[in-house]
Structure formats: C-alpha cells, structure tokens
C-alpha cells in the first residue's frame, strides 16, 4: 500500500477496518518528515517518541472499537497553537523554551476525533510575516523551488502538505497566513468565519482577526478537518454558538445557478499576468459548470493594507506586552532592576519585524495619535466590511486571486516592509470583515510555480465556499499539490 497516496478519509477507513495501523501511517510520515527536514526546515519540533506513543495508544483504542472523524490521521500543527507538554515557540527566541501546561481547544477537538498530533511547524515569528523568513529557527523552503519562500506566516504547515510530510495540518490566518502560503505552495488552505473555530490556546497576534484553519491536499479532506475543529467553546468569548454543519457529507459539486462575483479591484497593476490568465481560465470552467459570473466592485479594497497594519499592530502591541520575562519564556540575564529586565528581555527576545510591529501598534494607540490612526483605521474597516456585505446581496461567493505573485526568492522582499505587506493585499480584507475564504490551487506560472485562487463567502457560508471549490476540483480532475506526488 502506498501510504503517501492516501487521503484522510481513506487513512481513517483503513485504520478503522484494521487493514493498516495508525502506527504504520505515523512511522511513514515521521520518516519522510525527518529525511526532508534539512531541505525544507518545515518543522520546529518533531517529538518522535511522543508521536509514536500517540499512534500506539490510538491503535489500542481502535482494537476496542474506537471510531472518530480522523481516526489515526497524523496532523501537523503550526507552532503558535499550544500543545500540552510539547514545546510551542511561535518561532520566537522569547518562547523558545515554552512548554504549554494545557492544550488549545482545537488540539482537544482533534484528539477526540482520533487524530495524531504530529510535529510543530515552522512559521514567521509570532505569525508576523508573509514569507516565513522572520522565524528564529530559519526560513522554510518551497518544495516547488527550494530557493523560494513558501509564503507565510504558516509556511511550515503549507510545506507539510506540498512536500507530503503530513496528510494535513493546521495553520492560523490573521491577514492571509493560511491562504497565501497555500497559494504559493499549491495546496488547499481555508480561513473559517471569525468565531467558527475556538482561539483558546492559539497564541494571540491580532485578536479581532486571528482564526485557525486547515491545510489539505483536497477539498474533502479540508471539509473534514474543518468539521472536526469547529464549534462553540466557552473558553473563547469570541467563539459563536452556532451548529457545525456536516461539511464532508454535504459536499455538493452541482453549482448550477450559483452567482460568482469577480471584483474588478482585484485585477490591478502588479498582479502577475500568468495569475490573471489562470483566474480567467477558472472563470471559464465555472461558466461551463453553470455558474453565473458577475463583475462586482469592492471600492475600498486598496485601503486594506493600511487599515490592517494599524489595527493588527495595535492589537499585537497589546497582546505581546505579556512577554516580559516574568511568568514564562526566556528572561534576559544580568539586569539591575525590574524595568531593565522587561526592556532587555524584549530587546533580546523579539526579532526585527516583531519589534517594528509592536512599535507601529504602540504608536497607533498612543495618546495624540489614536484618533488619526487606530480609530480612523477602525472606521475604514467598517467601509471594507460594508463593501463585502453589499456584494453578498448580489452574489453567493466571490472569486479572485489569492496572491498578486507566485513564490518569490528568499531575501527578495525582506528589506522592504511595504513590498512584503503588499503580498497580502487580496487576503487581508477578508480578515478585517471576518468572513470565510479558501485558497484553491488553479494552475502554474511559466516558472512552474503554483497559483492559487481565492473563494470568499458570507458569514458562516463555509459550505458554499467548499462546494464551489469542490465543483472546480472535480472539473479539473483533482489537484497537483506536490512535486513529489507521482514519485
């Protein structure tokens, strides 16, 4: 049996039928992940002993008749999601020794469904970045071209899929951190509606924007993981009391009459030609499938980056104040008093991008600047949200590119924050509005690098977003999600 080729549902069924053991599947992926670690740098922590022990325990449970949504499936976890007893670093020096005494709710949910919590994936420090270059543990490489970035901030989780190091993974998305790396690595990545998935145990960056979501190789796998991690959580006051649909069972490729909006503001100068062509091709496919395509307008699109970098940094500056060397993390040594301990701990513990964002956020909240920056940005956020609400009165879903470029070279944009921030121009507004969106592979550019298209839905319309993606996946006969797929 070629374990590499098995989808989530296949792994789960074979394990439940006892035709294969969770231990065999897990051992296979561990071996692969370890052998490719030097090349990809996808993982920060890969605790072999713990992972194999989980698999053995699961096999024992299966012997006793255990069945779950994800029985025996190894799932890699972004390293900003707390895992009890397993180091969780946020790819920062300041948390490089942190061992959480509790599990994030999504981890509990995955375990209850029988998943194996696989390694902890590399990311931009505190999820701040679009290229995975700000990690204290070094950059992650894109399997389609090892000289290029995989996108960020969930770069390791995207590479776990495209290098086939795990059958699925979790990431987090504050401004595009799931969808942009999914696009650049040629895999599926989804950000659910804000409040759909509990943020308890997700180390906070921008609390009004952050949301955990799945990376997968196919739409049905993505649907299944989303189903497993969703649901109200009393431990997260922003989680919403709403039933979780059976996303997998309800997948439906019949999209006749579906109204798809294409925003004219997303086809601007700076978007690579091959990407535009690829989206146009997808539109033709949707037309053939019976969808109605409409041009729409999201007039405040261009303000998204400015709004985001004032709001997300304001929230971050407040969230990251807790890293002061008192309760956890790495404390600076040889300090003369408490104040110096705070300052030295932060100075030595945070990287450049994180410091820049704390500074920008502190500035936008500071007395004298608050009205002109933070408050103004929060008002423009309302306009951006209203753009989407107006659009969803006319259309069911919105289709656009996920990223204006394909994967760029390591180092290419790392010295120019604005150029780097512009990578998120098409994903960021979705977070500001709190609506769900997915990135789906939709072809390759002339360099052979993957292109992703984004499908955006209204609040809690994940099923519609998944169905739209599913119809496309079926029409194109599945995705080429990895350069190693046919090996």
């Amino acid at each position, binding site marked *: 049996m070629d374990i590499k080729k098995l989808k989530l549902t296949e792994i789960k069924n074979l394990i439940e039928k006892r035709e294969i053991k969770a231990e065999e599947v897990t051992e296979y992926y561990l071996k692969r992940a370890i052998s490719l670690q030097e090349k990809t740098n996808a993982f920060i922590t890969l605790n072999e002993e713990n992972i194999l022990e989980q698999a053995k325990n699961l096999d024992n449970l299966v012997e006793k008749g255990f069945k779950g949504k994800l029985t025996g499936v190894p799932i890699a976890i972004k390293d900003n999601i707390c895992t009890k007893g397993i180091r969780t670093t946020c790819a920062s020096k300041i948390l490089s020794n942190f061992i959480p*005494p509790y599990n994030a709710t999504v981890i509990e949910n995955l375990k209850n469904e029988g998943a194996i919590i696989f390694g902890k994936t590399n990311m931009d420090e505190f999820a701040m970045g679009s290229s995975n270059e700000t990690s204290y543990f070094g950059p992650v490489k894109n399997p389609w071209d090892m000289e290029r970035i995989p996108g960020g901030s969930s770069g390791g989780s995207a590479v776990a899929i495209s290098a086939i190091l795990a059958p699925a993974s979790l990431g987090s998305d504050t401004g595009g951190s799931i969808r942009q790396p999914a696009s650049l690595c040629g895999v599926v990545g989804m950000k659910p509606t804000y409040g759909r998935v509990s943020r308890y145990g997700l180390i906070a960056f921008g609390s009004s924007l952050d949301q955990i979501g799945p990376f997968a190789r196919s739409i049905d796998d993505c649907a299944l993981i989303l189903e497993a991690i969703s649901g109200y959580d009393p431990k997260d006051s922003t989680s919403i009391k709403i039933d979780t649909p059976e996303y997998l069972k309800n997948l439906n490729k019949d999209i006749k009459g579906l109204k798809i909006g294409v925003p004219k503001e997303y086809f601007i100068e700076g978007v690579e030609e091959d990407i535009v062509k690829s989206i146009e091709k997808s539109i033709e496919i949707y037309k053939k499938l019976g969808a109605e395509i409409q041009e729409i307008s999201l007039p405040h699109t261009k303000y998204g980056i400015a709004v985001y970098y004032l709001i997300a940094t304001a929230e971050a500056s407040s969230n990251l104040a807790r890293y002061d060397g008192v309760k956890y993390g790495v404390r600076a040594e040889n300090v003369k008093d408490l104040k110096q301990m705070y300052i030295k701990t932060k100075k030595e513990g945070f990287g450049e991008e994180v410091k*820049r964002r704390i500074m*920008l956020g502190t500035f936008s909240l500071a007395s004298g600047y608050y009205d002109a920056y933070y408050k103004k940005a929060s008002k423009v956020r309302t306009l951006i949200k209203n753009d989407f609400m107006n659009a969803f009165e006319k259309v069911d879903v919105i289709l656009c590119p996920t990223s204006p470029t394909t994967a760029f070279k390591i180092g290419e944009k790392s010295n120019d924050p604005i150029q780097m921030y512009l990578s998120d121009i098409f994903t960021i507004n979705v977070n500001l509005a709190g609506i769900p969106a997915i990135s789906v592979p939709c072809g390759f550019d002339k360099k052979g690098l993957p292109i992703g298209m984004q499908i955006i839905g209204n609040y809690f319309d994940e099923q519609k977003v998944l169905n739209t993606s599913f119809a496309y996946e079926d029409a194109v006969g599945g995705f080429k999600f990895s350069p190693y797929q046919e090996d």
Partner: protein
Amino acid sequence: MAEINKDLVKYIAVLARLEFDEEELDNFTEKFKRILDYVEQLKELNVDDVLPTYHININYNAMREDEVKESLEVSEVLKNAPDKKESFFRVPRVVE
C-alpha cells in the same frame, strides 16, 4: 500628521518597553517613516459619519455563571517560570 524622527521613535520605544542601538534606530526610523507614509492614504477618506468596527461579533456579551471550576495546579503554572520561589514568580527587587 505626525512628523517621524528619531526622537518620536525613541519616545514610542519607551512606551513599548523596547530599546534600540543608534544604528538600529536609523534603520528603524527610515522603515517606520515609509510605513507611515503609506498609511497616509487613509486621509483621502472622509469617515466622520462612519462608526468604527473594533470587533466583528460585538452584538453579544459572553456571560457565564460564577462557578468554581478546576484549574491548573500551581506547580504546573510555575513550570515555565524563569525564576520562582515557593508558589511565587520571582523578579528582581522592586523596593529597596
């Protein structure tokens, strides 16, 4: 709007409990300036009559009963502490 110079950056650094070397400060002021120049585009919009969005789902308050529930053991909580004594986090002396 705000004039970005080294003094302002130093002032913000004090508020943020951060510290920069002279060389870092130059590099930082320059990049900070570029970012703030970029966000100046928000000035084009008149939003006097627009309500701010601070949170997406603000329409309810998450209330719960005030019940005693199990929480982490003190020893668990202190496991990650850089310095501790008995059941306390220990920090450099604050009061002489």
